[in-house]
């Protein structure tokens, strides 16, 4: 029988507003991550000498997140010196890529116990501050028809005919679902408060949620990417999509993913290792997939990645009970649902990154823990997490609750 990779535990910090007035701004990224590693260790009475590798997604790995934040945090957490660790960057897919890679390691038999996750302090290390030739090298930018992701999201909305009203309505639902889930304690299982060096709580809940969001309030907001579009990025987009006359800029701060700080980690291992350490599997990682699509529209990868992962698993869409589709922008999830005909009742049932924020490198692990918690709560079986990714990529993972 094929070896399987199991999830023994999945935890995350709450997401703090990613600005100077956000609660987690005062917390260094290395501390954000090492604290959550300590929590994982404590919760599972984990002998860390049994962990073979720690894989941490981080999209802006410079300065305070630079070097190898994974190994640094493992040492800061006092984990056994035998634990190897590295940071990876597959843009917004990083946290889920870490999980998929951990599962591959375990399923290959080369490793038995791996921790995967991600960290991003967007308040301290700004998105894009690492520089990248896709935007900053003119030759590359020109040859690859680079446009910023917000304009890509508006391009999707224009092609699909999603109006401002449509995306705002989607965003309001995300807020409503997130507020309800947070209030009812649906996140309590995987949420570990961020504490200071004295054990005093710094943040215990997802603070980006706007309980009192209204359609009226959202309608007032200016589109965030209109100016960039007008400066010329619309023209680049229209060269690739000549069937359009103009880009309809519908995405605003209210219907785009929030800029936040956070970290998440997932304990993944083989059946034998779980038995030896007395760890009870919560889920089986059924399959994972990455792929890539047209880079200028950039954010349509979830559909392709979902088709691919289902094919790998030999499953059909109907087999999936719950989907977590990262709400990078409202149009991304709306297009995914339209492409695959997935009903609202199955998608982001507890809200998503529009309401709670998208801590880039951590999000993949965050939404996987969210779908696992919800499968357990509902007594359902299969969950699928997917994200759109820079460069046109898409990633998806299927888990089976046990």
């Amino acid at each position, binding site marked *: 029988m094929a070896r399987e990779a199991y999830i023994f535990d999945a935890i995350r910090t709450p997401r703090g507003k990613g600005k100077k007035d956000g609660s987690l*701004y005062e917390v260094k990224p290395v501390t954000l991550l090492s604290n959550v590693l300590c929590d994982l260790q404590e919760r599972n009475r984990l002998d860390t000498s049994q962990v073979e590798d720690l894989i941490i997604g981080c999209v802006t790995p410079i300065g305070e997140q630079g070097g190898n934040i994974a190994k640094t945090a493992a040492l800061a957490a006092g984990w056994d010196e035998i634990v190897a660790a590295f940071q990876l960057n597959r843009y917004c897919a990083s946290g889920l890529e870490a999980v998929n890679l951990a599962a591959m390691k375990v399923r290959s038999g080369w490793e038995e116990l791996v921790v995967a996750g991600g960290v991003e302090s967007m308040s301290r290390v700004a998105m894009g501050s690492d520089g990248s030739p896709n935007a900053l090298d003119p030759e590359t930018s020109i040859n690859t028809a680079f446009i910023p992701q917000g304009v890509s999201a508006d391009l999707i909305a224009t092609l699909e005919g999603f109006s401002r009203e449509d995306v705002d309505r989607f965003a309001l639902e995300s807020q409503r679902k997130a507020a309800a889930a947070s209030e009812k304690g649906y996140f309590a299982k995987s949420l570990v408060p961020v504490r200071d060096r*004295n054990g005093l709580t710094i943040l215990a809940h997802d603070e980006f949620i706007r309980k009192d969001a209204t359609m009226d309030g959202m309608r007032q907001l200016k589109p965030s990417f209109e100016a960039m579009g007008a400066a010329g990025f619309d023209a680049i987009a229209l060269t690739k999509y000549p069937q359009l006359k103009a880009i309809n800029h519908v995405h605003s701060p209210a219907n785009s993913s929030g800029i936040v700080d956070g970290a998440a980690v997932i304990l993944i291992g083989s059946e034998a290792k779980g038995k030896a350490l007395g760890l009870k599997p919560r889920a089986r990682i059924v399959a994972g997939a990455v792929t890539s699509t047209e880079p200028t529209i950039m954010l349509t990868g979830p559909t392709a990645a979902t088709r691919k992962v289902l094919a790998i698993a030999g499953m059909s869409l109907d087999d999936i009970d719950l989907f977590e589709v990262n709400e990078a922008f409202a149009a991304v999830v709306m297009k995914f649902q339209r492409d695959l005909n997935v009903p609202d009742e199955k998608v982001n049932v507890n809200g998503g990154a529009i309401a709670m924020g998208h801590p880039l490198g951590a999000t993949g692990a965050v939404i996987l823990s969210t779908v696992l918690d919800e499968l357990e709560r509902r007594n359902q079986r299969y969950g699928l997490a997917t994200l759109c990714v820079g460069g046109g990529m898409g990633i998806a993972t299927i888990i089976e609750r046990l």
Partner: protein
Amino acid sequence: MSGFRYEKDGDKIVTISLDLPAGPVSSETISRSLDEVIARLESDDVAGVVIASGKEPFSSRASARELLNFPKLSRKDVYDRLAALKVRLRRLESLGKPVVAAIGDNALGAEFEIFLAAHHRVAVNRPDLLIGLPDVAAGLLPSLGGLVRLVYLLGLEKALPLLQDGVRLSPEKACEVGLINELVADADDLLSRAKTWIKANPAAAQAWDKKGYQIPGGTPAHPRIAQMIITAPAILRKKNDPTRPTQEAILCAAVEGAQVDLDSALRIESRYLVELLFSGAKA
């Protein structure tokens, strides 16, 4: 009853000085007194504020530890009290009116920290007076924002050695290193000099509250500061002074505070201090 005297002159300049009632002095007494006097300043029509030395420096009435932890409190309580005190000093320094410290007596520890919230510091040039932040000797770091304000005022390179050595200097030396801005020879001139400064600087504010303020020498991201930070732990280890754990905490709190904004830095300062206070990492 208020712990501060409050005297307003014909130019609408208010002089406040600490005049605590008899009995034990704690962070709570000071906090309550500050709250009252600042609320009064905020609602009064004032041209400026002089904070003068009280009739007796409170460092002579309570040790730093007693001040912070009287009666025996939990970590959370100490932290919350510090937070309240720091908010008060933030209110004072952002009153929108010039605030000048008039130092005519010893000003050590918490007392000097209050003076650091002033926009300008004048002291009497008496060689027997001591000014500074000696907390390290008690196994502590400054508690009322003194560590953070010293870093924001002087930069990491200059502030760190002062904090780690538990600086106690005569007014003249304190002026040389930048803890004091101005000296007067005669105690009788102190108030008038303070008031002259207020009249000449009606729009005074803290440098760090002005837009675009940069910590002298730069933040920890600056290559020269980064170089200093890389070797700092090794230097402390080599020195291996009895106060090393405290000096390490000072180093961490100062560097971390310089990476964020002032309000976050003040919280970080409190967190390290509370840890020291309860760990018993004594001198």
